[in-house]
């Protein structure tokens, strides 16, 4: 038995958000590939924009799934999204230029099977479960890949496991000073996992508004991007990292201002909410 609680209908339909999120994430991740063509690192910040786009899509997916009252809390959805997504992303990085596409397909397969497992073997019987877990695995994979592209300037396995430092004029290859070897992937994992689950967790309830939640997601995404931009100083040139940082700060200030305005807009109006619904809406 699961009851769907749609407190407020309307807004942009989920399919539209999904397609827009998927396309813009992939395009942004591929735009970081301009680094390789132009032999600079100036385009790394597109990785951060990919993260924001993916998170907006993902948080709406969480909204779709969690309005069925799964009973485990919203954060668990973010955790399984990134748990399954990171696994797919790590394998996909081996495919060079094709990595984002491979990550997409692989994460979708993993998410599909996990969705089947939870819906049928664990008897959750929630209509949106399989599709939601599939989407969230893809979001998780593309978000971590976006962070990787932003911090290191690329998304290939070699690029993520090595870095070149100059010692006494000789270039030396370091494995410990890399996105994977240095454990930065764990930070990227949690930056994304918290940013994806927080918006719906914070905005759910009878006063839920789609635009406010998605604006909060963008705000969380840019906030994560600021941290990632600071970390990227260790891997890419200072100029490129500075561009990322400036883009992130401008994006964060704008989205935070917008979110604040929307919160004031929604708080000024009062909603004739019904008595507490029979099922919890988290």
């Amino acid at each position, binding site marked *: 038995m699961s009851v769907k609680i749609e407190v407020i209908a309307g807004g942009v339909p989920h399919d539209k958000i999904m397609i827009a999120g998927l396309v813009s994430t992939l395009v942004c991740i591929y735009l970081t590939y301009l680094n390789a063509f132009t032999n600079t690192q100036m385009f790394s910040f597109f990785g951060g924009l990919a993260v924001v786009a993916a998170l907006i899509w993902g948080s709406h997916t969480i909204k779709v799934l969690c309005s069925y009252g799964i009973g485990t*809390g919203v954060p668990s959805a973010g955790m399984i999204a990134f748990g399954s997504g990171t696994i797919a992303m*790590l394998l996909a990085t081996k495919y060079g230029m094709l990595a984002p596409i491979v990550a997409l397909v692989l994460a979708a397969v993993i998410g599909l099977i996990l969705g089947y497992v939870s819906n049928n073997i664990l008897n959750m019987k929630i209509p949106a479960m399989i599709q939601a877990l599939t989407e969230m695995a893809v979001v998780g994979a593309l978000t971590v890949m976006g962070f990787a592209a932003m911090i290191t300037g690329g998304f290939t396995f070699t690029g993520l496991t090595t870095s070149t430092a100059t010692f006494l004029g000789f270039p030396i290859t370091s494995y410990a000073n890399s996105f994977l070897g240095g454990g930065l992937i764990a930070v990227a994992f949690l930056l994304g996992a918290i940013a994806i689950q927080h918006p719906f967790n914070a905005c759910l309830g009878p006063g839920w508004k789609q635009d406010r939640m998605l604006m909060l997601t963008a705000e969380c995404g840019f906030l994560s991007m600021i941290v990632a931009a600071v970390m990227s100083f260790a891997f890419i040139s200072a100029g490129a990292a500075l561009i990322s940082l400036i883009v992130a700060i401008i994006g964060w200030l704008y989205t935070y201002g917008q979110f604040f305005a929307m919160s004031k807009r929604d708080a000024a109006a009062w909603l004739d909410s019904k008595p507490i619904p029979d099922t919890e809406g988290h």
Partner: protein
Amino acid sequence: MSAVAAKPQAGGAMNPTAMAVGVVLLIIILGACYYVSPNLGLTALIGVIVGGVLIGFGTHFVPVGGAPAAMGQAPGIATGVAMLAAGAGLAGLFGGAWAAPLGTTVATITGGIGGGLMMAITCMMVNFVYVYGMGIPAASGKVLHDPITGDSQAEFKSQGTEGHGLPFVSFVGGVIGGILAGAGGTLIYLALLDLYKATFPTLMSATHAQVLPVAVSVAGMFAVAMFLVNAVLTAYNITGTIEGPHDPKFKRWPRAIVASAVASALCGFVAILIVAI
């Protein structure tokens, strides 16, 4: 039906067809792994599956109360399964990873002790907060007498609640759960670390010492990711809250075993493919 009592009731029944599909899927993944990497890969995958099943089974013991527990209206620790299992399991994983050079047995036991210790401290402090902070006694809502101490529960249970606080049996359950989950997480880490240590030098054409940070990091990341996947699947199995091993929901564990085995096999297979192809 009050809003608090109205947790979604996912069916407690087994779904035999889906279970059969799950077992077939597991065999297919094992076969595929045997095909791509018969020795090292298969050993690692079996370690991963055993670890995943331990996590899935262990999480059933942990008294998860969720939001109702925070309001003193249900027994258990006042947070979700994902957070608790992550706390206990990762504490165990760190302990186990530290002991990894001492061999699989020592490391696994260390991981289990780390997880159990973390849960013991958590349960202890939770009860301090409940008793001295919120002023509520520990009482189970699911059983009349504590199965271990035999203490009567019903007199201490407030009307309109499902029990509150953390009864002794839940405390013991939490520690057992922490031990199993910590050992499971460590097993996954060790299985993958052994595989990566053996294969990364050829894959990346570097020396053993050079690739060690990458092997540790990738194995650790996979262990964390699989840990979270298994913990959340178990959370779905118990639909959010459970009191401990005496809770009727505990009887659902066979479903979680199959689900964890399939999920771990799938994730483990992908982790092995990194070095196998």
